[in-house]
Every structure is written in C-alpha cells, then in structure tokens.
C-alpha cells in the first residue's frame, strides 16, 4: 500500500515537472521568474500572451489526451485480457482520423477552424457504432470487428490521399495524420474536453468488472458481471474520449499501449488499480514527448506522433521478448 502511494506521489511530481517544462519551453524560452510573475499579476505582455493563448491550452490538451490514451489502454487491456490491446484496436482512432481528413479534403477546415475536430469526433462515433453492430456477441467478435473497421477507415484515408485535389492537400492530410499538439487553442480544448470527460466516466465505471474478468469471462459472469454492459461502456468510453483526443491532435501512438505496462507491476497487476496510474503516466509521457518535440533542434518540428512511435517501438520489442520469455 505504501509503495502504491509513493508511486502516485512520484507520478504527480513528474506531471508537475512536465507541465512546468511544457509551459516554459518553445521557440521563445520563458524565464520561470516571468512565468511566475505573469501568473500572479496577469498583464497583457508578450510572455503572458504566449503563456495563456498558446502554452496553457497546449499543455492542458496534452494532459487530457495523454490521460485518455493511458486510461483507455488500461481498460481495453483489462477487458480483452490482452497485453497488446490499445485504444486504436477498436477502429476508433482510424475513424476519427478519417473524419478529420474528410474535413481537410473538402476544404471545410479552411473555412472554419473547428471543422477538423468536429468531423473527427463524428468519425470516431461512426466507427465505434459500426464496431459495436458488427462485433456483437463476444470479445473475440469485437476485436475482429474492430480490425475490420480499422481496415475500412484506413482504406478511406488512402482513398483521400489518392484523390487529393493537389499536392498541398495531400501534404496537409499527411501532416495532420502524424499528430501534433502545436497551434491548439482554447476552442479546440473546449470542444474536445466534454467528450473526453464523458468518455472517462464511462471507462471508470468498468473498473470493478475488469477485476472480476481476471478470472475469465465465465467466472466473471457468475460473479454478476454483465459482459455486454462492460463491453458497451468500454467501447463508448473509448469512442468518446479517444475519438475526441485523436480529433484534436491527430494519431498519437504507443502511449495507450505503454502506460498500462509501465504501472502494472507497481499496483499488483490488479486491473482496476491500473486505471488511475495509467492515466497519470499517459499524461506525463505525452507532455514530456510534446516538450521533446519543441526542444529537439530540427529545422521542421518533429511531430508528436512520430516521436511517440519512435520512442515506443523499442518498448514494443521489449514487450514481445518478455512475453516470449514468460510463455513456455
């Protein structure tokens, strides 16, 4: 118990460090003293503008998106009892990406700024509904349906790239797909936040049922778990939160896969206890990764999704090797 608490405090400390770094770093390095002063007595200085209009919404969005990916990954791994499950598994991320790309493709994004995230959320909900309808009747069915829906959405994305009206549109679509937190403002945050929070509520409701699922589906059912309800909550929660997150930032991979594994040994592997720390470390990882994209000196900014994939792949290899060692 004591060890568990200590990890929680360490997580909170790390998150605070990440947030401070995220507020301070960028093309303009804000002196911590100025940062502090502008918080204490807000005045319309350049520093304050950068902080309140750029860095703050960006950091908050980073926390929300990271926590969403961590939480959803932990819930899906618990539900499917599969260490390789991640938020993209059910087709939700691909659906959100397709929706957003459609907005870019038809030039809606140029006419009003919130078209991309709005279409993204619509795409996520569409994909989740499709997964739910096709994948009724079992966990395996749901995974297979998710794979099929992901494939369908990916085909749609390729089609959009194929028929892109001009190279610039194709470039814009590709760039968006790479995932980034830059140039996000309060409007995008305000649009995504309600969906994300509603999604979190759905996901959190699965906690106890995930514990019972440790014994397998038959025993969980005998302990009063309504499997259909758990599946529905997990899918709806993922659709809303991950859909809105992907719609706001583009595809950010690996955080949802890595965060639960990172914290699991420290909470005794109990699925319900993985949820909160996983969300916390998802947020920490994402904010740190976002800081890194700003710090790494490259001519064009490294995209967030690219960085998390680059950093996440070695972890994936490690996971595969470890699974191989553990299985007879």
């Amino acid at each position: 118990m004591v060890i568990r608490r200590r990890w929680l405090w360490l997580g909170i400390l790390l998150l605070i460090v990440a947030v401070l770094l995220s507020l301070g770093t960028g093309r303009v390095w804000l002196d911590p003293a100025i940062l502090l002063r502008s918080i204490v007595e807000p005045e319309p200085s350049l520093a304050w503008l950068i902080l309140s209009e750029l860095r703050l919404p960006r950091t908050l969005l980073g926390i929300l998106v990271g926590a969403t990916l961590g939480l959803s990954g932990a819930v899906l791994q618990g539900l499917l009892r599969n260490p390789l499950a991640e938020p993209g598994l059910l087709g939700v991320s691909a659906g959100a990406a397709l929706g957003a790309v459609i907005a870019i493709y038809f030039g809606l994004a140029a006419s009003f700024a919130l078209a991309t995230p709005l279409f993204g959320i619509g795409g996520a909900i569409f994909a989740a509904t499709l997964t739910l309808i096709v994948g009724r009747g079992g966990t395996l069915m749901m995974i297979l349906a998710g794979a099929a829906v992901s494939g369908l959405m990916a085909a749609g994305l390729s089609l959009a790239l194929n028929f892109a009206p001009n190279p610039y549109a194709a470039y814009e679509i590709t760039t968006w797909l790479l995932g980034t937190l830059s140039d996000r403002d309060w409007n995008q945050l305000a649009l995504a936040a309600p969906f994300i929070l509603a999604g979190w509520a759905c996901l959190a409701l699965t906690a106890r049922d995930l514990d019972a699922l440790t014994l397998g589906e038959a025993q969980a059912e005998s302990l009063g778990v309504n499997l259909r309800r758990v599946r529905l909550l997990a899918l709806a929660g993922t659709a809303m939160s991950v859909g809105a997150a992907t719609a706001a930032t583009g595809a950010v991979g690996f955080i949802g896969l890595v965060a639960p594994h990172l914290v699991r040994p420290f909470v005794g592997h109990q699925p319900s206890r993985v949820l909160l720390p996983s969300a916390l470390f998802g947020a920490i990882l994402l904010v740190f990764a976002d800081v890194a994209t700003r710090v790494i000196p490259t001519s064009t900014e490294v995209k967030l999704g690219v960085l998390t994939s680059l950093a996440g792949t070695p972890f994936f290899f490690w996971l595969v090797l470890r699974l191989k060692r553990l299985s007879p």
Partner: protein
Amino acid sequence: MTILQAHDLKVERGGRRIVDTVSLRLEGGAFVAIIGPNGAGKSTLMSALAGLLIADAGHVTLDGVALTAIGNRTLAQLRAYLPQNPRAEWPISVERLIALGLTPQLPAFGGLPAAFVRRIDTLLAQFDLISHRDQPATTLSGGELARAMLARALVSDPALLLADEPLAGLDPRHALDGVARLRALADGGKLVIASIHELTLAARYATHVAVLREGRLIAFGPTAQTLTSGLVRDTFDVDACVTAAGSPLAIVDFVAKPAQPWSAASSSGSDSTPRS
C-alpha cells in the same frame, strides 16, 4: 432450503442436441456428483443450471423462481460457479484472487471489510495456501491453482455451488481433502453440484449421483442405490465393479471390455465446453 429444479432442459449447439430433455430436482444438503463419459453434456448442463447459459427449451428455477428472473448480482450472491480448468489472466496475488469471489458482496467503493479479510485467511488455511498468499496466481502449479480457485468459489459462502471438475489435477491428499470439504458443505445444508471423473471419490463422498450420457439423464438418485456396476458398465462401456457405493470404503474399479477395441468404446467426441 435451497431447491434447484430443471424442467425439460434442452440445449442445442451447431445442430447437435447437447443437453436433451433433462429434468432434475436437487435440494440443499445434497452433494450431487454429475458423472458421464466425455462429451456427455456435463459442462453444458452445469452452465445451464448456473444460469450462465440460456437453454433452447425448458428452464431452471431456484426456490421456485426462474433463474432468468433473478438479477445478476442477487444470483451471484446465492450461487458460486467454477468452470473447468479456470485460469488467472493477470499475475495477481493468491489472496487477491480469492478476494475476487467476494465481488458481488463488496461495497461499491473502499477496501475489504475486516470480516472478509478474516474469511479469506480461513480459506487460505483450509486449502493449504498460506505460504502462497502473496505469490502471483499465474505462477502456481495446476493443482495449487485448482485449490485457489475452489477457495475463490467458497469464500462468499454460497448456498449453491456448481463446480465443473474441481478435483482435476489435484494430488491424492488434496483431492480427498477437497471432496471431503464439498461433502462437509452439503452436510451443512448447502447444495453442492460437481462433475467428477474420479468415480471412487464420487462413490465415497457424493450423497447423490446424476448420470449423463449423450445429453440424456439416464440415472439419478442416492449414491448407494444408484451407482451400481451395471450402471457404470452401461455408461462408460467398461467392465466395472462397484463395491459399497455411498460408504467411506467404496471402490469403483474398471477395466476395458476385452472384446471391444478402445476406439469403439469411446466413440463420442471430446468434452464440450459451454460457450456463453
């Protein structure tokens, strides 16, 4: 008094009738051994009796109320169900694993109440698992895991226990210990239903036997009167000798029928696992 009744239960899967018109009336205080060859429909019947599988026809009642009319959680507090070869999917500790049996009783938030902690300690001691308390359940041996799972099923003190081959994989000492514990539960007024392949243990400890073959209930009654050499011979297609069934010294011995090749003797397929 717990009364579990099945009325003309029929379950079909893939066009094959797995449970065929089974009617049963079981009362608290009985330890019912369900026996039968592989593929006889034992597991499917037990899932249906546990209310985890909706029958194609017929229904099951508990104290006169249809299982489908009892809420998930209420039913979970009344009966415990242990499937064949249960597995732990995450390396949680044995103590946690057993605590999961209390899921329906637990308050929505907060830790384990003290009374439950004591109950878990008792179960750990009864099933010889004290030294494994903090061990990850995934690293237990097959027999140790089977004991931990039985403890998990019993921790909530259910009025009705359905265990599908709870003795599989146990060494002689723990098998005897486990089956004696099931009998003790029945003697305490609970209704215990277990499918058992170790016929000698069934003959010694079960108060009743229910015999399934090809989905049909071919015999049911008190062990002493029901479990006879002839019945075992007809059910399992072996030459059998049953002595003193229903007493602590009962022995069921059997050899393959000499004239018949083994493959013909066990023509039916593998044990069907229920899918819900």
